[in-house]
């Protein structure tokens, strides 16, 4: 080989090495999106994971993490405890995974928190079940628990809807909803409201005829639903069939915030008012921009869960950024614990953790003419 060729080769090699190391410097930050893509909670998990993926792509597009990219892998917990726990174990064993966003529901998340604390990987679940925190510092809840969201709902019932007696319906097998109902009842009873009937259903139940008859016989001025959307819609139908008068107000919480409430409930849910995280279409400039961009990219309207997923991914990405140039699982966990005023598209627009309890406000929606609108204040 001539000496010129040798120099060329050396230069090419050097350039190649420089490029390679440059690429290596731009690191991949791997997050696992573990949501219920099949099973009973899929109607939450699928839009949530869509929102998270959308957020990750958007954040990468505007170089949120500098040169680094968020790389995500999507896994299905099938709304089932053993699958969720096995997935956490599997991903925790992969050292390239920095954080897990999920699982979806409280029954999956609470034992998964145990696994996460064992394996020392951060886990931020969709649920608001405070029981998840007991397992250790690695588990995080994402939604606001009853202590934060129920006083505004109670105030709405007492002062705006002006009802003097209520009946409640709650999921008995989901920590989150048991908590919400309990806090609500405590709050309003202290302020003079009478709770005439407190009933419970299981998440998989569908035969409400007996309970509906009981509630109607108790003649409440309002019925408050502490369940997810589809069950609430079904309950509303069966209540109306059992003869619930149209003058009885129906109230609820953010679990009802999905298009299925209207699809399934139809005329039976007209006038239902509930506290929600997300106002369809967005209630702030950032929210409206998100709704438009999401619709443009996916062709679907962003619902409560997609908006929450989008916001939660933003919060985790912010924590990774705050953890500095070489984030570890520990440093991400610590940064996440200190989250303060991260801009999000739900609630009042700012997300913080206060003693590991999420705080981000709420907005009240009403079902009117088959659509969600802002509720009268």
């Amino acid at each position, binding site marked *: 080989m001539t000496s010129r060729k040798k120099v060329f080769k050396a230069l090419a090699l050097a350039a190649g090495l420089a490029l390679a190391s440059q690429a290596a410097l731009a690191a991949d930050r791997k997050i696992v999106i573990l949501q219920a893509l*099949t099973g009973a909670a899929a109607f939450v998990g699928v839009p949530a994971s869509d929102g998270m993926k959308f957020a990750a792509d958007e954040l990468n597009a505007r170089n949120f993490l500098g040169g680094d990219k968020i790389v995500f892998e999507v896994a299905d917990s099938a709304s089932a*405890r*053993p699958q969720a*726990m*096995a997935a956490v*174990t*599997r991903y925790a*064993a*992969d050292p390239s995974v920095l954080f897990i966003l999920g699982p979806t529901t409280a*029954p999956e998340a*609470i*034992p998964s928190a*145990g*696994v996460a604390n*064992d394996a020392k990987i951060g886990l931020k679940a969709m649920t608001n079940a405070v*029981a998840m925190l*007991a*397992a250790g510092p690695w588990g995080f809840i994402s939604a606001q628990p009853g202590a934060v969201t129920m006083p505004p709902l109670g105030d709405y019932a007492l002062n705006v809807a002006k009802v003097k007696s209520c009946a409640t319906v709650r999921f*008995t*097998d*989901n*920590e989150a909803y*048991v908590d919400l109902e309990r806090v609500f009842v405590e709050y309003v009873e202290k302020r003079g409201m009478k709770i005439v009937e407190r009933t*419970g259903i*299981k998440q998989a139940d569908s035969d409400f005829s007996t309970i509906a008859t009981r509630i109607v016989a108790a003649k409440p001025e309002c019925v408050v639903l502490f369940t997810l959307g589809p069950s609430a819609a079904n309950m509303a139908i069966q209540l109306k069939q059992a003869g619930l008068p149209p003058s009885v107000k129906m109230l609820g919480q953010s679990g009802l915030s999905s298009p299925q409430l209207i699809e399934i409930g139809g005329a039976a849910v007209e006038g239902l008012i509930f506290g929600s995280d997300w106002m369809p279409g967005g209630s702030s400039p950032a929210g409206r921009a998100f709704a438009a961009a999401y619709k443009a990219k996916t062709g679907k309207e962003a619902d409560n869960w997609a908006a929450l997923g989008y916001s939660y991914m933003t919060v985790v990405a912010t924590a990774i950024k705050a953890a500095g140039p070489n984030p570890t699982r520990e440093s991400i966990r610590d940064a996440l614990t200190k989250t303060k005023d991260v801009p999000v598209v739900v609630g009042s627009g700012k997300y913080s953790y206060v003693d590991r309890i999420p705080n981000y406000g709420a907005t009240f929606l009403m079902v009117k003419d088959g659509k969600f609108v802002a509720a009268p204040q």
Partner: protein
Amino acid sequence: MMSFITPHLPLLDLIFIGTGYALSQAIVFRAGTFSVATSGFAALGAYAAAILTVKQGLHPAAAVGLGTLLGLLCGLLLSVPLARLRGVYQAIASLAFVEILVALILYFEDLTGGPLGFHNIPRVVTPWVLFLAMLATMVLLTLLGRGGIGRAFDAMRQDPAVAASLGVNPTRYHVLSFALSGAIAGLFGGLDALRNFSLTAEQFGFSILIGTLSAVVLGGRRAVLGPLIGTTILVLLPEIFRPLADYRQAVYGLLLVVVMAFLPFGVYDTIVMKLHNRKLARAGMLAPKVPKALA
């Protein structure tokens, strides 16, 4: 090596615990009783171990021991009414027992957590403990099976009248089979609870029943290795053929149908039988072919 095993530990857990439950189920089948009460005994053992450890502060080993005892006692109790029934009526009665138990566990919320489940159980049980428990159980059952007890069970299963005429006291062995079944299920239920952080009543319902039944049907109910082989196949199949994982139920169902039609004694027992028959044939000891199946 560890980095290969660690992500798959949950599979080993499933195999060890699943085999324990399958062994509990296999005993009563072998003794000729069509009972599916195993998941009920397991629920008792699991909740007892969890409540005693978390709420009473008992040492986990003692808690699991008490859970095992509870399972044993419940097995003894259940054997009495079930002795008066036959065949599918026993199955329905044992099913009713499991459902009653699940409903009661759900009702006594203050004790068990009710529908919310019982959470934050310390993970004190390691895969090694599970493995040793499974091994010990299999050794115990092999020893019992080789002796008079095993022969008595086989006799009772095939022809209760003949067994009685041969001096086998059906009541005694019936009760014994239930006591063993209850104890083993209670043991593994307790270990399950102290391994998997939380319990819900529903996990002891239909799906565990199907899984345990499938494992015994697939592997065989007579030999002690049958439940292990059946459980291992059922746990590993969805992992090896990933697409099957989504259709777990269909695979179990297909297995049940096909095995009943072609290998009614299960994979392992059929192999043992065929080898045994070959040995007998070579020694010229085999009678002309009879349509009724041999033990």
